[in-house]
């Protein structure tokens, strides 16, 4: 396509967007809600992943062995660990070490344990770190299955809750966003339908002088993409602002909990939003124009 035509088509796209600004605004609104929701969901999921990842590194599963374990038992347990693929690393803590640690932790009251001389109340134990937090429960069950194991410490409830929240957010937002994208496509194609209807005289003249369908479609596609562009820019701005507020709020609640900085993901989000927005705009337009050109509206006679 020649550059002079391209300039003409882009001007036409802008002109038509402006003439039709009320409907265009509605389209921008729906697309924008859709994108903000998508962005929020992604940010929630990313932050939970980060938090759970952190907990995972902190959260070492304690495996306590039955009392009266011999060296043979300890070796047996060690080899069982080798068969569980979700184990990242293990560290043996003997009952003597456990006692020492506990004494130190109690400080001055450490001599309380002096009464136990000769009879250590702590079991031998392993610190086990898990590779994939998703398979946590499964791994805990496997550890419990080892005969020499007395008990396995449970994972913290916070991590469990967070993973549940994350999964729920993912599933719900997937459906809601899917639905909203359909609504956005519907509204965009209706907006463009109105534009086409307002310009049916021009379209019929274009057809009569032999403009190709591609050429006729182009200004409308550009108009749709402009809608997407505006929605993409605005929604990134809104998300940035709201995320800032949320980060502040969470920081006030607990100084240790910090969110991923927006600047880490902002450019990617902007890029994705522009891409999704413009693709939705172009698609919505395309559907509408094709439908119009296929029906009698796309004719030369009797279109007014």
């Amino acid at each position: 396509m020649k550059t002079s035509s391209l300039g003409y088509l882009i001007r036409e796209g802008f002109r038509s967007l402006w003439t039709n600004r009320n409907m265009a605004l509605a389209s921008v609104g729906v697309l924008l809600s859709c994108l903000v929701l998508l962005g929020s969901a992604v940010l929630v999921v990313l932050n939970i992943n980060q938090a759970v990842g952190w907990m995972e590194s902190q959260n070492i599963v304690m495996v306590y062995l039955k009392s009266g374990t011999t060296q043979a038992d300890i070796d047996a347990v060690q080899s069982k660990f080798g068969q569980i693929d979700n184990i990242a690393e293990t560290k043996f803590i003997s009952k003597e070490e456990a006692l020492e640690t506990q004494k130190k932790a109690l400080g001055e009251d450490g001599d309380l344990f002096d009464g136990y001389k000769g009879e250590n109340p702590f079991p031998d134990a392993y610190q086990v770190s898990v590779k994939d937090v998703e398979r946590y429960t499964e791994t805990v069950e496997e550890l419990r299955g080892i005969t020499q194991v007395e008990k396995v410490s449970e994972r913290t409830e916070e991590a469990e809750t967070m993973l549940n929240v994350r999964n729920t957010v993912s599933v719900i937002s997937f459906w809601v966003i899917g639905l909203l994208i359909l609504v956005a496509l519907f509204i965009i194609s209706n907006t463009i339908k109105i534009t086409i209807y307002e310009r049916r005289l021009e379209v019929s003249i274009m057809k009569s002088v032999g403009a190709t369908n591609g050429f006729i479609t182009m200004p409308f596609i550009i108009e749709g993409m402009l809608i997407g562009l505006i929605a993409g820019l605005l929604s990134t701005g809104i998300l940035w602002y709201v995320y800032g507020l949320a980060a502040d709020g969470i920081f006030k609640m607990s100084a240790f909990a910090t969110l991923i900085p927006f600047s880490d993901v902002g450019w990617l989000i902007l890029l994705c939003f522009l891409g999704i927005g413009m693709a939705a705009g172009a698609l919505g337009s395309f559907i509408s124009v094709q439908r119009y050109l296929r029906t009698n509206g796309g004719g030369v006679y009797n279109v007014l």
Partner: protein
Amino acid sequence: MIEFRGVTKTYPNGTTALKDINLTIEDGEFVFIVGSSGAGKSTFLKLIIREEVANAGKIRVNGFDFSTMKKRDIPYMRRTMGIVFQDFRLIPKMTVFDNVAFAMRVTGAPPRQIRKRVSKVLALVGLSHKARCMPGELSGGEQQRVGLARAMVNNPKMIVADEPTGNIDPERSFEMVKLLSEINRRGTTVLMVTHEMSLVERFDRRVIQIDDGSVISDTGVRESHEDE
């Protein structure tokens, strides 16, 4: 050149608008198509511009064989013809110049060529001085001349006009046909539908009369000079 061989057109509601039409219109001819209301004149033009598709028969227009032509070739086929409508069909919010330029722009012509060519066709229809006017500021006759300029701007082989004088007074109608004759004299085929027999009688041209979907008379090819 237009060739119809055994062409029949029945609309989806069952109305047969044209029955077994056979005719040939050579390049450079000037043809009036006459007939009463509902005879099938517009249907004939719609088949030529491929707005409607024939149910039977063969149609060839300006080297395009409609039975083998692809859908995506229709725009290129239409560039070989200029269409003039009874109701002018000018875009109200564009100047006369832009209305004519529009037809070139949407076929991808470069701006410099557009300026030159639009000035030329506006001069041809005698409206150079109205180039900056809006269509609403023109008389009916002038508006139709703009319509004709637009039809001419892409340098078509053929002008197809459906009652171009239907909305203008008799004196302007006569001038309009003279203008079409001038265009024809320069080599463009002209096809004009009208039901004003008094107008047709003032020009010695080939006349095809359609009634109830059939050609009932055809004066055949004439020498292409007018004879008032």
